[in-house]
C-alpha cells in the first residue's frame, strides 16, 4: 500500500455496506425492482394471457363490449376499466414505460453534470469555480416544473425524453452541483489529496481517482432525489395536459377525474387509485433510496 492510499483509506469510510444496511435503501430498491418487473410484464401479458382478445386489452384503443364503463374490478379486468372502456391494468403498465424512460434519462444526466461541475469547481477554484457556482445558483432559482410547462404547452412532440433532459440539466447544474461542490471542497482539503499532488498526480488523476470516488454516494443521493422530482414534475405536466396528449400516469389520474360524472357521476376509484398510488410507489422508491443514501453518507450518523 502506498502512503497515498493509506491516507485515503483512513479518510474515506466504507460506504457500500452502510448503504445496504439502511432499511430505506433496501426497501426502495425492492419496490423499484417490482415496478420494473411489472412494466416488463406488459408485452408478455399481451402475448400470453391477453393474446386472445387484442381488441379488448390494447392500452390505447382497447374496448370491452361486454361491460358498461367505467366498470369496477372483475376477474377479466383486475383494476376495472376506464370511462372509454379500456383495461386499467393494461393502461397502467403501458403508462409506466414513459415514467421509467424519464428516470432512465434523467438519472445519468443529473449524475454526470453534478459530478463534473462540482469536482471541476472544487479542483480548479478561482474563475472556473465562480462561473460554475454562480451559474448553478441562478439555475436553482428556476423551478423545473415551471420550465416544463413553458416548453410543453402547445407542443405536440413534447415527451418523456424532453422532460427528462430539461429537468436533468436544471437540477444537475443547479442544486445537485451546489451540494456536490461543497462536499468536493471538503475533500480537497484532506491530506491524501495533498499527498497525491506531491506524488505527481495531475488533474485527471486527482479528480478521477480521488475526488470522484468520494463524491459518488452523495451524487447518487442527489441523483435519486432529482429523479423523484422529475417523476413528480412529469406526472404534473401530464395532469395539466401539457405533455402533448401522451399517455402517462399523470394523464391516467387526469382522465379519471375528468370523466367522473360524465354518465353516472360515480368516482372511478380503481382507476384513480391505480394511477395515483403507482405514482406514489414509484416516486417513494426513488425518494427512499435518496434519503437512505443521504443518511448513510453522512459520516457522523452511526447506524
Amino acid at each position: 500500500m502506498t502512503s497515498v492510499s493509506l491516507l485515503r483509506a483512513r479518510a474515506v469510510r466504507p460506504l457500500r455496506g452502510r448503504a445496504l444496511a439502511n432499511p430505506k435503501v433496501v426497501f426502495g430498491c425492492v419496490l423499484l425492482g417490482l415496478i420494473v418487473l411489472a412494466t416488463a410484464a406488459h408485452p408478455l401479458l399481451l402475448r400470453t394471457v391477453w393474446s386472445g382478445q387484442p381488441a379488448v386489452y390494447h392500452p390505447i384503443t382497447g374496448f370491452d363490449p361486454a361491460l358498461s364503463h367505467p366498470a369496477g374490478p372483475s376477474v377479466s379486468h383486475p383494476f376495472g376499466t376506464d370511462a372509454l372502456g379500456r383495461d386499467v391494468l393494461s393502461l397502467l403498465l403501458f403508462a409506466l414505460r414513459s415514467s421509467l424512460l424519464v428516470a432512465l434519462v434523467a438519472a445519468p444526466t443529473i449524475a454526470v453534470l453534478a459530478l463534473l461541475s462540482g469536482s471541476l469547481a472544487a479542483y480548479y477554484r478561482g474563475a472556473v469555480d465562480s462561473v460554475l457556482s454562480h451559474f448553478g445558483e441562478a439555475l436553482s432559482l428556476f423551478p423545473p416544473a415551471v420550465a416544463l410547462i413553458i416548453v410543453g404547452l402547445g407542443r405536440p412532440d413534447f415527451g418523456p425524453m424532453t422532460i427528462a433532459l430539461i429537468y436533468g440539466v436544471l437540477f444537475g447544474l443547479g442544486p445537485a452541483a451546489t451540494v456536490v461542490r461543497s462536499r468536493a471542497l471538503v475533500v480537497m482539503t484532506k491530506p491524501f489529496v495533498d499527498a497525491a499532488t506531491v506524488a505527481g498526480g495531475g488533474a485527471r488523476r486527482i479528480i478521477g481517482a480521488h475526488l470522484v470516488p468520494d463524491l459518488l454516494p452523495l451524487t447518487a443521493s442527489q441523483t435519486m432525489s432529482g429523479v423523484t422530482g422529475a417523476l413528480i414534475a412529469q406526472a404534473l405536466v401530464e395532469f395539466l395536459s401539457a405533455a402533448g396528449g401522451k399517455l402517462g400516469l399523470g394523464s391516467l389520474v387526469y382522465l379519471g377525474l375528468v370523466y367522473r360524472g360524465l354518465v353516472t357521476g360515480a368516482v372511478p376509484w380503481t382507476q384513480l387509485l391505480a394511477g395515483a398510488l403507482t405514482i406514489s410507489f414509484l416516486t417513494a422508491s426513488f425518494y427512499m433510496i435518496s434519503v437512505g443514501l443521504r443518511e448513510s453518507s453522512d459520516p457522523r450518523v452511526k447506524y
Partner: protein
Amino acid sequence: MRPLLRFVAVRSGLALLTLFLFVTTAFFFVSTVMPFDYATQFWFSGGTSAMLEARERLGLNRPLWEQYLSFLGDLTTGGLGSSLSGESVGALVAAGLPTTLLVFGTGGVVAFLLGSWLGKLIAWRQNRLLVGAASTLSVFLYSAFPPWLVFLLVYVGTTPLVSLRFWLDMPYDSQAIWRDVPFGESDLLRVAGISLFLALVVSLLARGWAQRREIPMVGILALPAALIGVVVAIVLLGYGQPALDVLVFRSQRSYAIGPGSPILAFVAFVLLAYGEIMFVVRTGVEAELGEDYVVTARAKGLSPERVLNRHIARNAVLPVLSRTFTGVPYILTGLLVIESQFALPGLSSLFFGSVRTVDTPLVLGVLVVLGVVTLGLRLFLDLLHAVLDPRIRLGFQR
C-alpha cells in the same frame, strides 16, 4: 459590527449577480422556447395582417437583444414593465401575492414547525415503532400525487359527516353575508392572508426571544395567542362571517368545506411539504447525539428537553433552514397545482394565464418575483448564520 456590515455588503452584491444571471437566463429561455408569440391570437380573428400589425405595435419584431435591454431597463428602475395586454405587471403580481402568501407562506412555516418537531421527536426517542410509523407516513405523503391529495381532501371535506351543514342544519345565504360588506371577496382574502402570515412571523420571533430569556410560558403561548388575536380582531371588526366564508367555505356557498377553500389548500400544502423537513432534522439531530457536548450537558444534570431544545436543536436546525430555503423553487411545484386546482387567485393562476396567452413580460414578472423572494430568504439566512457564528463573518476579514 463592521465585519458584519462588510459581510452583508458582499453577500448582497453576490445575490445581485446571481439575480442578474437568473434574469438573463429566464429572459432568453422564455423568449425563445415558446412555440407561439402573443400576436398569434390575433391571427384567429383578423388573419395574417392583424397578426403582423399586432407584432409591430407590441414591439415583438424587434431584435431579441433590444427587447432584453428594454426589459433590463424596466428592472433597474424597479418596475416589472407592463404586460402585453397593457396592464402593469407589478400591480398584477401584487394582487396575486397575498393569496400565495396565505397558502405558501403560512403553510411553509407550519410545515417547518411540524417537520422539525417530529424530526426532533423521532431522533430523540429512538422508538422503533414511532420511527417506523412517522417515516412511512412522511414518505407516503411526500410522494403523494398533489392533484390526487387535493381530490381526496375535497372529497372528504364535502362528505356529510365532516361538513358543518349536516350538524348545523341551518340555511346558508352567502349573498346575505356579503350584503353589508363594503369590499369584495378577494380584498378580504388578501387582508386575511397578509395578517395571518404576519401574525405567524411575529409569534415566531416572540417565541425565539422568549426562549432566549427563558420565559417558557410566552414561548408556548405566542403562536396560539397570535392566531386567536387575528381571529378576534376580524370578528370584532364585524367581518367574522365573510372571513369564514372566504377562508373555509369559499365558492361552496354552503356549510361544507369544498373546492376553492384556502384552508384545504393550506392543509394540502403542509401535508406535502413537512416530510422532507422531518427527515433532514432527524438526520441532523442524530448526527449531534454522539457529540461530547451532549454527554457533558446530560452529565451536568440538565433535563433531556433542555439538552434537545437548547443545545442540539441549535446546531441541527440551521442546516435544515438553508436546505428549505434553497429548495423554495422546487417546493413551489406542488403549490402550482394546488393553487390552480383550488382556483385561488394567486401567482400560479396568473402564471398559467400568462403562459397560455404567451404574455412573456407577465411570465417573466412572476419568475423574477419568485427569484427575488428566494434570494431574499437566502440572504436573510446567511445573515442569521453570520450573527450566530462569528467564524463566518470574521472569515471575510482575512
